């Protein structure tokens, strides 16, 4: 879905200030973006790839759904009434909104139709490999091209109209129906996982009711059931005067903490039994997510707290993995003490700490953005060295290090993904605890002060050197644990696994989840690591998806989906006018300058 949000979000951002009477031109512009988006979705093969998957049994394949979801989103956007200032009556949606939606949709449809005509008349496949006859059939609903053109435009218009129509639903209905639809989609997408789940808790009959077969698409009945059930749920919630959150905030402090702890316990207990219920594959995915979460929590300290954008974060992950591998694997080329993983962990920590210092020291006095690119350099250097024939005698070069033994704790052997879930889970809990504990501490404050305004922080008595070093070291150690677990779980490490994209993925996780917010990062990791694995179709578009997500987040929700309270306030308060923002960060900027000015 994110594929469509980026242009949308961008346009929206700008349009915030556009006076209402412009909205025809606006609709046209959105329409063109819509056309572009739809064509891209088709031409990059997303439609083709997802076509294979049925959402609801006889009809509605995911590919087309995806395509027209774009039109829907743009229709919705085009019909969005311009924001009204405090105290003004909100604009009442009227026919003009509908028209805007329809127009946007129509233009989008026209674009898609054009693509269809082009690809059927000329052979573009030599250049754009995805424009296959198969795609043509899909786009044309199996009609003749001539008929298809009008059909596509018609459908797109209708969908755009539908998007606009959202504004005509009374809010409470909207808040009930939209999530309902969303859940239908979720059920349809994660069909095998959900099947697994109900199977795991011994409710196969639910699966049989909802899906044609285990892992199969939803039946019509199933879809309706899910839709009604969830809509009803949200309808009921919509009826409440106050949201859960508000009522939660009204609770007295100690009861609130009790609730939080209770909630945390509940979540953990659920997570605890997850692998047993979910079977090996889902556990495998959860393990991966857990390992990335471990890294994300580390980077969250470096970036979220200390404000140091480290793009070479994967290096610490690699250090952890390789240190553990060398110390535990009988096949480590140079020297292999064949310790157990537990025995190796202290050394992993030390190695990571050293690596942290090595990376941090040169960048101590560097501008934020230079720091980013230098750390990126370090990350790549680490990978290349591990892969090099030069150091192969120590790291095994391209052959990597294999036969890393399973994790042994006393009598217990952890082998299967389900087993590994336990230690990974524990490490994550500890890491999360450390993150929270440190945040409230003297050093946590020092880091945040440094993030806010380095030179003032120093003038207020914070030793920038130690602050930066400590941030890097803590982050490095967390990542290295991730690496150690990763290696022993897969049983082998290859340089190939420590690519820059790992750093980027971790970055995306904390951006999407919300910098500095532990729950946010957790959800981010689950969503971004689990999703591509569970939806094999997605995996090919994973990084396209990430990229768009990064842009969209920065444009619409820079504080992340589950922001830490502070960031939320910081970035979304009326009190904070743009010029204030400029003033504040302008000073931050000039602050850096002072530090540099002395150079």
């Amino acid at each position: 879905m994110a594929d469509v949000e980026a242009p949308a979000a961008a346009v929206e951002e700008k349009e915030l200030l556009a006076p209402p009477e412009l909205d025809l031109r606006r609709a046209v512009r959105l329409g063109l973006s819509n056309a572009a988006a739809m064509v891209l979705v088709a031409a990059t093969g997303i439609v083709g790839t997802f076509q294979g998957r049925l959402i609801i049994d006889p009809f509605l394949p995911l590919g087309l759904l995806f395509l027209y979801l774009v039109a829907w989103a743009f229709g919705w956007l085009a019909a969005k009434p311009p924001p009204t200032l405090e105290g003004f009556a909100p604009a009442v949606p009227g026919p003009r909104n509908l028209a805007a939606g329809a127009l946007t949709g129509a233009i989008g449809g026209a674009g898609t139709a054009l693509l269809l005509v082009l690809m059927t008349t000329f052979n573009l496949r030599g250049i754009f490999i995805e424009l296959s006859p198969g795609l043509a059939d899909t786009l044309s609903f199996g009609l003749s091209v001539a008929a298809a053109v009008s059909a596509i435009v018609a459908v797109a218009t209708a969908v755009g109209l539908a998007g606009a129509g959202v504004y005509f639903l009374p809010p409470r209905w909207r808040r009930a129906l939209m999530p309902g639809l969303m859940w239908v989609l979720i059920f349809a997408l994660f069909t095998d996982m959900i099947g697994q789940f109900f199977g795991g808790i011994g409710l196969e009959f639910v699966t049989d009711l909802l899906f044609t077969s285990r892992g199969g698409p939803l039946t019509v009945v199933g879809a309706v059931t899910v839709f009604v059930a969830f809509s009803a749920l949200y309808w009921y919630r919509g009826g409440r005067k106050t949201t859960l959150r508000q009522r939660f905030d009204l609770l007295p402090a100690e009861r609130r903490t009790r609730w939080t702890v209770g909630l945390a316990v509940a979540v953990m207990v659920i997570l605890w039994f997850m692998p047993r219920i979910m079977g090996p594959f889902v556990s495998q995915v959860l393990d991966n997510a857990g390992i990335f979460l471990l890294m994300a929590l580390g980077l969250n300290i470096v970036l979220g707290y200390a404000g140091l954008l480290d793009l070479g974060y994967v290096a610490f992950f690699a250090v952890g993995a390789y240190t553990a591998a060398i110390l535990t694997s009988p096949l480590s080329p140079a020297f292999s003490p064949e310790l157990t993983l537990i025995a190796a962990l202290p050394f992993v920590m030390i190695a990571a700490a050293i690596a942290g210092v090595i990376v941090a020291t040169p960048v101590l006095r560097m501008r934020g953005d230079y720091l980013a690119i230098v750390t990126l350099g370090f990350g790549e250097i680490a990978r290349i060295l591990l892969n090099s024939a030069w150091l192969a005698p120590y790291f095994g070069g391209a052959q990597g290090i294999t036969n890393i033994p399973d994790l042994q704790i006393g009598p217990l052997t952890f082998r299967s993904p389900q087993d590994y879930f336990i230690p990974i889970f524990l490490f994550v809990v500890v890491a999360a605890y450390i993150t929270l504990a440190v945040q409230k501490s003297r050093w946590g404050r020092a880091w945040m002060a440094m993030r806010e305004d380095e030179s003032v922080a120093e003038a207020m008595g914070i030793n920038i050197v130690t602050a930066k070093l400590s941030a890097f070291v803590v982050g490095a150690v967390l990542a290295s644990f991730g690496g150690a677990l990763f290696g022993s779980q897969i049983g082998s490490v290859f340089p190939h696994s420590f690519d820059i994209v790992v750093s980027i993925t971790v970055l995306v996780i904390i951006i999407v989840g919300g910098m500095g917010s532990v729950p946010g990062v957790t959800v981010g990791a689950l969503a971004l690591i689990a999703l591509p694995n569970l939806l094999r179709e997605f995996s090919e578009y994973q990084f396209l998806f990430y990229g768009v997500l990064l842009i969209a987040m920065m444009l619409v929700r820079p504080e992340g989906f589950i922001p830490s309270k502070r960031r939320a306030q910081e970035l979304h308060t009326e009190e904070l006018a743009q010029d204030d923002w400029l003033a504040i960060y302008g000073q931050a900027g000039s602050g850096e300058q002072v530090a540099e000015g002395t150079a």
Partner: protein
Amino acid sequence: MTEATAPARPTRRASRITPVATFLWFLRIVALVVILYGSFQSISSGRLTAAQWRDLIVFGVSTGSVYALIALGYTMVYGVLRFINFAHGEVFMTGAMSAFLVANGLATTSLWASNPVLSLLIVLLASMVTSTAVAVIVERVAYRPLRGAPRLIPLITSIGASFTIQYIVRGLVGPSTKAFPRVEQLRGTWNIFGLVILKSQVVVIVAALLMMASLYLFVERTRTGRSMRAVSEDPETAALMGINVDRTIVTVFAVGGAMAGVAGALWGLVFPSLNFFSGFLPGIKAFTAAVLGGIGNIVGAMLGGVSVGLFESVGPSLVLAGYEIPAFSQLKDVVAYLALVLVLIFRPSGILGERLATERT
């Protein structure tokens, strides 16, 4: 940066030199010794003939001039907006990719063989148009809405943009690696003042120099150029002076994009093969070049580009080989990255110095 920690006056007591400063000095010295000793070793070993050294150098210069063209995009954008346009490498890649597509199309026609110059110009045009368009769109969608946001935010967006472009291209033309059609007229060598140089390399170097020169004139002489410099000096004031900042910024992106486009087309001549990921490394190296030459400094970009090109083509054979490191050319990129790191640590303001007004963003 280091001087910041170094004593204000040479007469300062040693006790006042912070550990960081000492460490960095130490680093400097080590780097120097390593390089010198390595080069000495490999030269004295006489492993490579003069001709081979010359080849490496010429090649370094030609690659370097491509980097230089890309570097312009970084240097100009950084000069104006004070952030690293991470996606610029991808802008370059899209240019190269469209150059490939057009060239491939032309190669099937007779024009390619009969009139290479014209067809090359068409290719050049195509890649310039694409890159410019991409650069402008990215600015419009991903950066403009973020004016005045904290520094890291546009940086992160640009990382996002970079990945988006990469994988859109991957989706469109597939992951396979494309091989440029060859221009027969550019095979073989020319003998220039006794230097035997590959024709393609000559073309690349000359073309790069021409673009640089014209860009320099554009920025220094034209009205638009002046407004660019004004904006990079101080956006607020420029705006007060009645300069349309937004339009100027778009121009900056457009020009940067066009240059990347040229680079893309030339790339096809030097390395007749690319895929959707080919923009990443040249991007990083070009950024190094930009910093090395001095951010916001056009002449600097050329210098920086060439030096980076030389580092990576001569560096491994010169320094690493001196230590008999096996398969040292694997470490080619390590050399490039180390150059980046060292430059940023020790000369963040570049050879020719930055053309940055004191920070206001």
